[in-house]
């Protein structure tokens, strides 16, 4: 079930430039992700990873260039979600919201929609959170509910902004299993991450971003020391359990 071909990339940017006032968050970024690919989006904080996602879903406009999606069926899980504790939604309500994109404003839930919601809840082990208020959940539980919402969307393209940052072990495991499943289902996945080891192991492409595109290609040939030094210039980088300060290891690269 290939959802997009190489000729028709699932996500493509062409000279994409996004500015906030005088600051260029993205500078002439161009790439094309084939349908069904798994891409790790690497870059330090402030490299424009979130901006790239936000531009893809239309939350920020491009100052120049374009970003195109092959399908409107896109799920985006932002890194931060600011929901006040008293917000009146339950875990189940949040997962059900994932169906709003397909159903539109008023069409009632069909059996298939209920099925997708139930599947998503099972996949992320959030069935027991269905009647709990979202604001009362722990950070990891919230993240699993939000991932379940993305799963319920039945999207062709999934954009996940650092889903593994600051989550507990069960959430980490559930998210990895989910990514695997989505990939097997032929969906296109882009995950922003700081985890170089995982980027090389679990993804078929890496996209190194530092406001401009530093490198893009298969992990084994792309993640050279030079590329990483340029991508993470002057930043502390996490490689497995080690913390590496790129500036110190590559004198003159910063």
């Amino acid at each position, binding site marked *: 079930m290939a959802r997009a071909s190489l000729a028709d990339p699932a996500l493509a940017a062409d000279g994409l430039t996004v500015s906030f006032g005088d600051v260029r968050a993205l500078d002439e970024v161009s790439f094309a992700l084939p349908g069904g690919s798994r891409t790790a989006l690497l870059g330090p904080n402030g490299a424009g990873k979130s901006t790239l996602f936000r531009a893809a*879903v239309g*939350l920020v406009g491009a100052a120049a260039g374009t970003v195109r999606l092959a399908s409107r069926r896109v*799920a*985006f899980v*932002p890194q931060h979600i600011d929901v006040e504790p008293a917000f009146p939604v339950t875990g189940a*309500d949040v997962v059900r*919201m994932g169906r*709003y994109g397909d159903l539109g404003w008023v069409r009632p839930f069909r059996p298939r929609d209920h099925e997708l919601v139930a599947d998503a809840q099972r996949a992320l082990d959030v069935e027991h959170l269905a009647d709990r208020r979202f604001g009362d959940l722990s950070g990891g539980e919230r993240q699993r509910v939000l991932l379940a919402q993305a799963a319920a969307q039945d999207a062709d393209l999934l954009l996940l902004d650092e889903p593994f940052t600051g989550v507990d072990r069960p959430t980490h495991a559930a998210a990895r299993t989910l990514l695997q499943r989505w990939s097997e289902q032929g969906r296109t996945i882009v995950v922003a991450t700081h985890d170089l080891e995982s980027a090389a192991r679990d993804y078929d492409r890496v996209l190194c971003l530092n406001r401009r595109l530093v490198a893009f290609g298969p992990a084994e040939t792309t993640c050279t020391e030079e590329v990483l030094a340029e991508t993470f210039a002057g930043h502390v980088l996490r490689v497995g359990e080690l913390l590496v300060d790129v500036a110190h290891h590559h004198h003159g690269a910063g």
Partner: protein
Amino acid sequence: MDFITDPFQAEFVRTGALAAALVGVLCGVVGCFVILRGMALMADSLAHGVLPGIAIAFMITAGGAAGEEPDEAAITAGALGAGLVTAFATGLIFRRSRLREETAAAVVFVFMLALGVVLISRVEGYTVDLTAFLFGDVLGVTGGDVAFTAVATAAVLALVAVLYRPFLALSFDRQRAAALGMPVDRLHLVMLVIVTLAVVIGFRVVGALLVLGMLMAPPAAAALLTKRLPAMMLASAGIAAASAPLGMLLSWHLDLAAGASIVLVAVSAFVVLLAVRPVPR
């Protein structure tokens, strides 16, 4: 029992209570989104922003002649127009300036308020009853007003029902709503228009200041009781609607301003619920 039934023997009390209850249901539901989106100041700005529209409508229809009654429909249209100007001007300043929406709302708020006062001061031989504008005239409500309020309330609530899903998604998280394919900026504007409609429908009965009370207090009280939005809307509408006859009762027996008594009851509901509900974990 006479204590309770006596006041409602008078037709003007019944009519006023009914109109206030309708406004309560409307504001109780719309106010849920005001609270969930943190738009309290925006709602305040819309409530005051209607003043210059009222002044202009008065100047045109009453022609400044002393004692002439202003045209009710024109006043409503003027209020609506000025409310929409407030909403759109705030949106424009927000987008152009990159200041916080709160700041943009406050700038437009004071401008509209000052403009309204300046316009009113120009009306010769007549001082528009500012008290009625700010605090309403529940006891002066006519049968026609009730019919208008009922139809307008039903229309706005139907609109809210249609927009329930996008409004919920937008209130929950703007970014995720956008990712669900929802036009978040336009939806936000539509939400402002709906708050404006609630203000315009409500200020004729409870006044521009007190309509804000009906937009804020019942949803805040309902939020203490519920963990799902449909339940919050129902509870909020119920608290607001019940506040109307209770407030009238209070007003009758203690000889208090009717509109303000209604809002006091609604705020009291919030305080009582806050005090008696189980302490959250």
